[in-house]
């Protein structure tokens, strides 16, 4: 059970002078239950890549397999694929359209052909999973705050109960509080249900805390694909492609250069704290 990308290429506007290669020979295996951060600067091909995962875009070269089957086979059920690989777009609140929050979240499960009862049950669960209180269920989605709207939109995808959840920049344009709320809820959801989560972001800071694997994209190719601490070791190269390692990495390196015996590979605040205390205690 996994998603496999086999030498995937994608070229936009292939027959015009403005042809752009958005993906170049991307090979990836995404096993079940991983929490993955997909990082890259603007225009590195992250969004193009995730739209291939549920068959919205067809690769101009290469193939994509979901659970061992080529998703662009003639007889492959794309609709089912899209319920299994849930994709939350950038600014998903722009897709809300129903008169109230609850019916909007019901849209996905209803499209899967579920009964009204089943769809409503799933919508209820999904809304609770993203932390929307009952009092908001029958309000117009357009009256909610930005962060709430976004969570409702995420619930709209969660209600389809996907096996893989892809979130394209879920924190774009949110304040720090809204950002932490959403990321914490995603992490909690991941823990409770064990689904695969792919978090697309351009901020290492955001993902470092949560993910067990980081894929760095640069100009349409995979640049690094490893556990966070290994990826952050390349912080100089990351800077060159317009990204940065978390601030913790920089501090740890500085401390080490200043003569403190700490492990510079600590990626989260907690790890860093433990390392520093250890080094200081030893002295």
């Amino acid at each position: 059970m996994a998603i496999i990308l086999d030498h995937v290429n994608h070229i936009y506007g292939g027959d015009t002078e403005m042809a752009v290669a958005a993906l170049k020979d991307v090979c990836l295996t995404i096993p079940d239950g991983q929490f993955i951060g997909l990082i890259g600067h603007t225009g590195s091909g992250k969004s193009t890549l995730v739209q291939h995962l549920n068959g919205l875009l067809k690769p101009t070269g290469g193939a994509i397999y979901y659970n061992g089957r080529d998703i662009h086979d003639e007889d492959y059920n794309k609709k089912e694929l899209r319920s299994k690989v849930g994709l939350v777009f950038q600014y998903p609140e722009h897709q809300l359209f129903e008169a109230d929050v609850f019916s909007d979240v019901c849209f996905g499960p209803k499209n899967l052909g579920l009964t009204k009862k089943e769809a409503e049950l799933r919508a209820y669960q999904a809304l609770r999973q993203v932390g929307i209180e009952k009092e908001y269920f029958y309000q117009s989605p357009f009256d909610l705050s930005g962060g709430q709207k976004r969570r409702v939109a995420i619930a709209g995808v969660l209600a389809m109960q996907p096996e893989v959840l892809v979130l394209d920049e879920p924190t774009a344009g949110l304040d720090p509080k809204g950002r932490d709320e959403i990321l914490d809820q995603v992490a909690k959801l991941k823990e409770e249900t064990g689904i695969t989560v792919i978090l697309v972001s351009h901020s290492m800071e955001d993902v470092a805390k949560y993910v067990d694997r980081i894929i760095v994209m640069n100009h349409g190719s995979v640049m690094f694909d490893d556990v966070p601490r290994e990826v952050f070791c390349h912080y100089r190269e990351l800077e060159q492609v317009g990204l940065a390692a978390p601030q913790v990495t920089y501090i740890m390196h500085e401390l080490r250069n200043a003569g403190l015996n700490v492990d510079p590979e600590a990626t989260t605040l907690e790890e860093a704290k433990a390392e520093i205390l250890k080094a200081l205690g030893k002295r």
Partner: protein
Amino acid sequence: MIRDITLGQYYQTDSVIHRLDPRVKLVATFVYIISLFLFHNFTGYLVAALFLAAVIKLSHVPFQYMVKGMKAIMFLLLLTVVFNLFLTPGETLIQIWKFTITKEGLKLSIFMAIRLVFLIIGSSLMTLTTTPNHLTDGMESLMGPLKTLKVPVHEIAMMMSIALRFIPILLEETDKIMKAQIARGADFESGNLIRKAKAMIPLLVPLFISAFHRANDLAMAMEARCYRGGEHRTKMKPLHYEERDTVAYTILVLYLIVLVVVRNIGFLP
């Protein structure tokens, strides 16, 4: 999918046609469209086709790119052909049940189809080679004399330029929302007409909301920069006729003369 609609889009490249004064292109397009309805023989079509082909060649816009835009109006084209084919009275060619195809009908529908195709390629050629800003500048300048009749020329031009500017933005937006809803299991393709129309709601509601938002933001931004209409407004790049524009006008007049001659003598039926 929806990005394939090239009607009204600008194609960025460098060519003689791109560099022409927008007024020339506007007048030429207008004249060309009228010229398509001036003649009724195949020689006329040949001349019109040659003229169009030459302009396409000069414009450096790939022909496939234009053909792709044609797909969007295929339905309209078919409808015209079918109506002309069956509803023109005259000498019967084939009779199928109650429908008769006449010789005149066949001729008329072929002419009509060619005319429509030329008309659309001709006018999309103008938008493909002219930036929206240039286009409206040209329009404003050409409609200038109407100002004396109290026609709000500047305002019309401004509205046109905003509308044109928003076409690609809204197309992109439509594409995005469509994808987002497809990701939620929406189906825009199958089902009968009523189902299809209903399926559009999840697309249209967000689209309208975002369009209103954009309009509001734009109005605000314009006011913040003290926009107050066309009076005493100057241009950073006023339009000037160059030598190539004179040449283009000359070619246009020559084309018209040839057409009128062909119309009257036409050596093919």
